[in-house]
Structures are given as structure tokens and as C-alpha cells.
């Protein structure tokens, strides 16, 4: 039976909790209620209250307590009810967790799970893509799975990782995508991108929910005999610059795509990486398709205009192909 993206995360958490008694969950409404999105439904019944800890509305305490427990040898998996609230625990993440190892050799093996992304009419505070607040912070790892397979494999790797990992799960994918997962346990390594579709004319480099938009666009462009390669970054930090650059070398043309707003987005880091590394191999400008520089609007026609989609990608890709 195919497994949803949400169910895949749930399975990954469950397996890791069974495998390692040091893993525990912490967050708001995650125990009795099973979490706002029900990712952890049934966990407290199985693993008990000591390992599935409901907290007050205190994101800074959630992150801080995760750090403290992880310093003492546990592996905390914190849930933000929505990734938008991660800003309330920001100092703990970027100043405490991110810098412990560098400063005093103290590993902080924790994960912050944060449901992010738009397309669900959540408005300005339930739709954000907060990844870039963290990609610019050395000491953190940032993971953004696009598929159910990767969501499961990456949450498992994140939990086993000995550094703090931010795990941005896309709300819009939770129940929208499914696939058959291997019955045996597996992990997906952090820091490795994936070629989601091979092609030789043009590379679309993207991550998260936009991988599906890129694939949709690639499918339509194939009908016009434009063969698009889609690179799914999977991890934003540490960035798999090698795979990105190899794809660019192969196709010579790059379109960068993200759901996040434009200025200061991931596309910038990719553009800089590409021009400093494979400049001579590029046959046209690096172009961006992103959300515009606004808060995420609430009303459906506005949000639709805000979000990148296959049409917007196709238009830019055609232009670049002909360049």
C-alpha cells in the first residue's frame, strides 16, 4: 500500500524510537492529541509520557530543552506546531545549538521538525518557508524532503546525526503525495542531492514541494522536445555543490526554483556557487523562478499569484532554452 509523505515521517520517527531509547519527542499537543497534523498520533500510547513530552506554548523552551537533553546524551526531536513559530525559539537555535560544538566541543544531536510551506490558504503565519534563516547559520543542517521516500530516510538520518538538524516538512505534501516504500529499514544521507529527472537541455535546481512543480514542467517541456534535468537538493545545508555543478556542466543552462520569496533565497547561494565553479560551462544566464518579495497572502487568488507553478517555470525555461 502506498505511504503518504506524512505517514513516511511518522514511520521514520517510530522506527528510530524503537531502535534507540535515547530518542524522544517534545512539542506542543504532540502526546494526547498526536500533534496538530497527527504525525505523532499513537506515540505516547506506545512510548510513554517520558518519551513524548507535551509542553506549554514555549518554543524557546522546547528548543532549549531539546538542546539540554541532547547535551546529556539523549536525541531530542522537537516539533514546531507550524514552522512559522520557529522564530519564537530563534536565539536557542542559531546561537545556542548551532555553536556548541565549535565553541566547546559539545555535540547537540537534536532535530527540529517544522511543518512549512504554502498552498493551503494558511496566510502570512501558517505558510512561510523559513529555511534561509538557518541556511546562513554555520553549525546547523537544513533538510527539505520532497518525496515520501526521502522524508522517511532523511528523518531517520537527521535523528542519527550528531549535529542539530532542521527538518522542514512541507505541509502541502503531507497527504498529497504517496509512494510504495521499501519494507526493510533504510536511510537517506544528509547532504546529498538527487537527480529527480534526467535531461540534457536545461537544469532546474529546486527542493521541497517545488520538485513536483519542476517535474510537472519538465513533463510538459518534454513534449516540446526540451529535455529538462531536475535536481532535488534534499539538503540545503550542507549543500551538495558537486551534484548541482555537475548537472549545470551537463546542461549548460540553469533555472533555479523555490517556493520561498526571492531576495535572499536559496537561489542566490546556488547562483554564486555556479558562477564561481562552472562559469565556463554555462551557456546562458542563471534564472530564478520564486515567490515574489511579499508576505504570504491569505486569499486564494493572491496566494495563487504568489506561488510558483508549472506555467511560470515553463515560460522561463522556454526562454532560457532558446537563449
Amino acid at each position, binding site marked *: 500500500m502506498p505511504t503518504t509523505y506524512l505517514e513516511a515521517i511518522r514511520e521514520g520517527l517510530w522506527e528510530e524510537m524503537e531502535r534507540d531509547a535515547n530518542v524522544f519527542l517534545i512539542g*506542543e*499537543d504532540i502526546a*494526547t*492529541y498526536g500533534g*496538530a497534523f497527527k504525525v505523532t498520533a499513537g506515540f505516547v500510547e506506545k512510548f510513554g509520557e517520558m518519551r513524548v513530552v*507535551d509542553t*506549554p*506554548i*514555549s518554543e*524557546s*523552551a522546547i528548543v532549549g530543552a531539546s538542546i539540554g537533553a541532547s547535551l546529556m546524551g539523549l536525541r531530542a526531536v522537537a516539533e514546531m506546531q*507550524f514552522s*512559522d*513559530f520557529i*522564530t*519564537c525559539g530563534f536565539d536557542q537555535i542559531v546561537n545556542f545549538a548551532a555553536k556548541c560544538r565549535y565553541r566547546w566541543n559539545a555535540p547537540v544531536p537534536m532535530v527540529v521538525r517544522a511543518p512549512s510551506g504554502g498552498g493551503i*490558504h*494558511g*496566510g*502570512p*503565519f*501558517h505558510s512561510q518557508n523559513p529555511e534561509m534563516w538557518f541556511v546562513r547559520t554555520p553549525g546547523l543542517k537544513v533538510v527539505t524532503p520532497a518525496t515520501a521516500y526521502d522524508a522517511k530516510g532523511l528523518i531517520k538520518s537527521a535523528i542519527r546525526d550528531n549535529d542539530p538538524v532542521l527538518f522542514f516538512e512541507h505541509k502541502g505534501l503531507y497527504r498529497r503525495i504517496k509512494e510504495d516504500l521499501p519494507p526493510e529499514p533504510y536511510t537517506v544521507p544528509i547532504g546529498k542531492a538527487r537527480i529527480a529527472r534526467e535531461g540534457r537541455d536545461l537544469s532546474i535546481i529546486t527542493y521541497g514541494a517545488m520538485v513536483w512543480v519542476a517535474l510537472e514542467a519538465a513533463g510538459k517541456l518534454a513534449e516540446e522536445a526540451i529535455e529538462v534535468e531536475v535536481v532535488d537538493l534534499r539538503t540545503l545545508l550542507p549543500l551538495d555543490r558537486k551534484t548541482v555543478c555537475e548537472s549545470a556542466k551537463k546542461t549548460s543552462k540553469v533555472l533555479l526554483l523555490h517556493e520561498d520569496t526571492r531576495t535572499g533565497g536559496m537561489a542566490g547561494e546556488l547562483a554564486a556557487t555556479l558562477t564561481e565553479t562552472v562559469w565556463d560551462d554555462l551557456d546562458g544566464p542563471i534564472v530564478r523562478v520564486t515567490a*515574489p*518579495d*511579499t*508576505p504570504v*497572502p*491569505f*486569499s*486564494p*487568488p*493572491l496566494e*495563487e*499569484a*504568489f506561488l510558483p507553478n508549472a506555467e511560470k517555470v515553463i515560460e522561463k525555461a522556454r526562454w532560457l532554452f532558446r537563449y
Partner: protein
Amino acid sequence: MSTAELIVPPTRTQDAGPAEIARKCLYYMCQMREVEDRIERKLYRQGKIVGGVYVGRGQEAVSVGTAVLAAPEDVLFPSHRDMAALLIRGVTPGQVFAQYMGRVGGVTRGKDGNMHMGDLKLNIVSIISAMAASVPVAAGAALALRYQAKNHIVFCYFGDGATSRGDWHEGLNFAAVQKLPVVYICNNNQYAYSTPVARQMSCANVADRGPAYGIPVEIVDGNDVLAVHEAGRRAVEHARAGKGPYLLECKTFRMTGHSAHDAADYVPKHLWDEWAKLDPITRLEARMRDQGWATEAELDALHARIRGEVDEAVAWAEKSPYPDPATLLEDVYEAW
């Protein structure tokens, strides 16, 4: 759009007699109930609502009993179950429905949704989603009012769960040190989403936190609007007299799930039953009949009138267009 004036005295209740206060409070409690019922139980189920729905069913006495005390220049910071604070200020039910449907007629023109409503012309500041984020902002508004040498005060609303947040602490502490004119109104409805208050804090009452800021507190039956009003009057007088903040804890109960998609199975059944008996509207109506402040016929007329107003408002909102996608890029910054 509102015909409230027919039944509701247009003045604030600060100086009104009990019958007048009761009538005014009843009107707004019923209006809030009707507006929210329509949203949660009808429009939401019809798929006409965009995004989440959070209502204050059973808690109407909290926002009504306090917000009727506000002078128009007082600044209100309603939270997500304080619909009446908006209605009393003059936000129309039509604007509320349009807001919930993502139409241009909504208070935020489709840019934001649900209870995220604010209007500087009405001295209402919009919440953001993060619980208690308004609390330090309310202190700043009070700082401005004092600097402007205005005799106005700030009404700052929040739930029991919000008091766990760092912002709540920082905001109250700063306001207390500065002796700012803020009335804090806590709806302690026993739950924060699925989390009962005993898993949220280990003191018995939110009011037990007042001494940490050296500010006076009062606990009141949050389902008795006249009691809330009385306590609110003391709080308002304290703040307006320049004596600093005041914390009012209204004990109440959330007679609904956290939001429209939450069946709230985690709430023990007996609590629903117990609190249903304490419904603030039923209680006020009984009181009014007992005291001779209203006849059954008058009450019926009130409900009918409100239903009519709300029908009209829904119709108006449904006619309000969706925002033009061209407005997407507007108002990120001041236009230059």
C-alpha cells in the same frame, strides 16, 4: 449596516445603569455568537470559509464585558476568541464574513484571514499568530499614549496558554516597571489547544502570576458578563488613574474544539455538560427576565434582529469580490 443603535445605547457603559449595561452586553454577546455560529457551523461546512476557524463560543462574556468599557481612543488588542471586541468597536459582521472568505471586503482586504483583524482608525491592533506577541506591543502602545499625555488606556487580551510565552513575561514586566496603563484580560478557558491548564503551568491561576510583576490581579467568573464588567471597571479605573497595569483573569470554558477541524475528544464529557449550564448568554437572559430588564418578547425580537443583520451581512460578504491578483505586490512598503 448595523441597526445596533435601536437596541443598544450608543454611549460606553462606564456611566450606564445596570439594565442598560445588561442590554448592551446581551446584544454583543448574541451578535458574536450568531456571527461565529454562522462561520463555524454553516459557512465552514459549506466550504465557503478560507483557512482555519477559531471561535469564542461560551466565552463571549469576556470580550463583551470588558470591551464595552473602552473609550473610542482606548487601544484594543483582541486575541483570537474576542470577536466582540471588534464588533463593539465598529467592525461590521459583513467585514468579518468577508475576512473569513478571503474577500476584498474583509478587514485585511484578503491579505490576511480569520481573526487577524486590525484597523488603526478604530484603534484596534491586529494579532499575529504567535501567541502573546501582542503583549509587548500593547506595552508600546501604552507608552505612546502616556507620552502623548492622553488619558487613554490599552486593553490587552490573551488566553491561559499564551501566558507561558516569553513575550508575555517580557511584556508584563516592562509595562509594570513603566507603570503603563494596560488592562490585561485573560480568558482562562482551561485549555490551550489540547493542553489542559495544569500541563501549561503549575500555579493554580493565571492571576498567581501578577505578584511576579507587582501588579494587582482579580479573578472573576468569566461566564457572568456583569461580573466581568464590574471587575473590568475596577481594572480600567486603576489603569486610567495612572496606577499601572491590572490583570483580570476570567474563568471560562471553550465550548468548541480548538478550531473548526478539532473534535476535542480530549475534553472529558462532564466538562461540556457542566459548562453548558453556565452559558453566559442564557445566564444573562435569565437575569434580565428576573430583574425585569427585558421581556421574553424583547429577547425574541433581539435574536430575530441579529439573525436578520447577520443574514444581510453574509449576503453582503458573498457579493464582495476576491482581491485582484495585481494587489499581490502592493503595500509591502510605503509606496514611493
